[in-house]
């Protein structure tokens, strides 16, 4: 989408236009869903998180300050949704070895990626979110810091550590 079109859509969406909002959403929906899926490790919760994000975003888009901020803004909303859900999980300890996770892994990932996918499922909640924002959406450390509300240097070092960890977990 051209920059001008994008701005126009943001401005139209701010006034409550659903079509314009959908066009903007089309730019990010795959990343939103996959970030949520990977962070929450569960398709239903991921879908819920994304639809809640969509509603929140649409309801509050009139408060968006600048067109350029759309992408990071909607990810910020998503990241808050994810964190809420993750907080709920930690109360009811999620067992990665449970059969439901095995089936998620088997159903969703091809054999050659399973080892890595499993390793990626085993890293800490917030690190998974950081990793997906970085690799999937190409955000920089500073942008991730703003989205997740953590120290940028922490983001950078944790990202580095996560990657090191993955390398070791899959023995590469």
């Amino acid at each position, binding site marked *: 989408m051209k920059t001008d079109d994008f701005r126009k859509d943001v401005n139209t969406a701010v006034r409550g236009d659903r079509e314009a909002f959908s066009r903007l959403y089309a730019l990010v929906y795959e990343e939103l869903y996959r970030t949520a899926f990977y962070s929450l490790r569960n398709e239903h919760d991921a879908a819920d998180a994304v639809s809640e994000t969509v509603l929140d975003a649409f309801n509050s888009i009139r408060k968006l300050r600048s067109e350029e901020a759309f992408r990071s803004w909607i990810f910020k909303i998503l990241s808050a949704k994810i964190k809420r859900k993750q907080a709920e999980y930690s109360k009811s300890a999620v067992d990665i070895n449970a059969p439901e996770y095995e089936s998620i892994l088997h159903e*969703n990932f091809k054999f050659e990626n399973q080892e890595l996918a499993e390793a990626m499922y085993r890293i800490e909640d917030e690190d998974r979110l950081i990793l997906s924002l970085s690799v999937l959406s190409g955000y920089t450390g500073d942008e991730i810091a703003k989205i997740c509300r953590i120290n940028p240097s922490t983001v950078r070092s944790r990202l580095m550590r996560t990657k090191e960890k993955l390398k070791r977990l899959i023995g590469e």
Partner: protein
Amino acid sequence: MSDKIKKVLETPEVPDRLKPENITELLDAVPVRKRSRIKTVTAWCTAAAACLVITVGAVKFGSDKMISEQTAIMSAADSKPFGITNGISSGVKDESADEAVSEESDSASADKYTLQIPETLAFEQLGSYERVYEFYRKGIRSYGDIIGEDDDELMINSADAAERNESTVSEEASDISDTYSQAEGISEADVIKANKKGVYYFSTHVYGKTFRYVPFDSRNGRFGEPEETDISSYIPDAESGIREMYLSGDILSVIVYAYSGEDYAYSTAVLTFDVSDGSPEFAGSYIQSGVYISSRMKDNIMYLVTNQHPDYSFRFISDDEDITDEKYMKRVLPFCGESFENSECLDPSCILVPKGWDDRKYFESFVNVSGIDVTSPSVPVSVVSVAGNTEEIYCSQENIYLTEINYNSENEYYETGITRFSADSGTVSPQASGRINGRVLNQFSMDEYKGHFRVATTSFVYGDRGSGWPSNNVFVLDMDMNTVGSITGIAEKETIKSVNFQGDTGYVVTYERTDPLFAVNLSDPENPFITDEFKINGFSTFMRKWSDDLLLGFGVDADEDGIETGIKLTMFDVSDDSELNAVTTYSMNAEKSRRSYHSVYSDAVHDRKALLISPERNIIGFPVVEAIRDEDNNPETKSAYILFRFEDGQFKETGQIKAEGMYPFDRAVYIDDYICMFGGDTAVCAEISEMKETDRIYFETNDIYLWD
């Protein structure tokens, strides 16, 4: 690697109902909210400000008197633009604060605890919550506030502190390592602390809720029965995890992340434990809004820096939310106190924002800086909340420097904003701010010496047709944060990897393919100059003075093409800054062959707190992880702790201890003749001179480890 990760991440198919073409249905299902929340805020603020109730009380949450007390603060603030702070502290402390205090008694204390801001400061104070909201609406960043306490309180605290210091001195001498601190007498936090009774530890590999006290007998190098302390019970109704800790005298102060999921309240708690008998007894607590950034401790005063991001909450709070409700206010305003329940928003008169904020377009965050006496933590000595962000902090004897990375959209450069706070016995107050080109790597890039602040940065230089490359600088600033001298354009196309300031000299390591060590002469603050440059393969990520003539570098080894191959120790000869040299180096490298894979890595490369260095004891220790995959593709990870000494101009390995538990070693301390190494579920003690193991224990834990 990133490509593979990406492939995994891109695997799941987006369900149909979330496809863009179907999303309008979802939107149709829910009515769009019409009412503007912002108007509501304004209306409420105006109404509250119109009320004149001349009493001073704290904004005490959970009290049905909230609104009138709220109003009281605002009207008091109106009459005195500089912060009245008595109400907040006393409100936390005792019940009597719920009662109105006469205006006179307030003005008396207001005289004492006014936050004096130099006119030259680039920040101004906001006198009311209404103005804070106005500031938010402009979409800006914001700053803070000071809370005082009464005279009696201060005197009691200092008496306490003196007593404790005495008792510390009278204890039998024992040579125990502490986290390496950049400035003498200013302690830094870590995940491990030790005293003569034992070791307090939790793993860096986990954001857990428990820390361990492992008793230790320094006569025979044996551990006692470990005790586990679960911190979550001290922070009810929140998700929590330990970040770091301090040990000062008999007080163990544990810094904890606390997230109350219900109301997006990210905050940082300090839990204190009396450890005079070794095992921790809960003593007190403090909580402050914002995510933990960093801290320092001088004597019994902890300086705590958190970063609060109210924008999300401010924008997306739903319309049915009551904005006079404690939950709403705590989501969008800085607060502090003894606990979530028993905490209060900072006095609005003290909230600072940059001058000229009408023009700003970005909504940023608050940096909350407090001084807490850990002998009585529930009431801070002071709290300042300043608009902005911060990454790295530096603390000298009298000042705290906060850095903020800013993107200057006019010239497309990254700049570092630096704000100097004076810090005196817990009272923090912003004094001056300035700006320099480039970004600061970490705390060691900064230093205060003889009335000047020196800082090294990596900036970006633009060439023709959009090309660009990094470049490096050293700036010298006066105490008003004006640049008085600088060297720019050091080692173009390289970036700073570590910095070490020693008096009149600054040592800077930059890196692209080789590691030039630069010596910068700073004896004339206005005319710094490079005296020498020395090149060596690899780069140091941390440097520490070993002796007057020697500088120890720890970091990454690399080959001539800049391919990182392992870990490297370098002893630089800095006896003559115009003739830098390396006395010796020691490398631990991966052996790579086509049929097997082998890598060597140490947490200490990116986390200098994992290093145990003592020139006095001639100790250089760090954890190492080796990953090996043999010809049959069987992976194996080995973790060890390695101890070196520097002898006859060489690094010599004293010995190494294998972790053998589930998790690698991450920290070690020495206690007299023993070194105690910790790794998640394992503690091993060895006698230092030969690294001969004397004891080994394994813990059980419910924490979920990142290494599982």
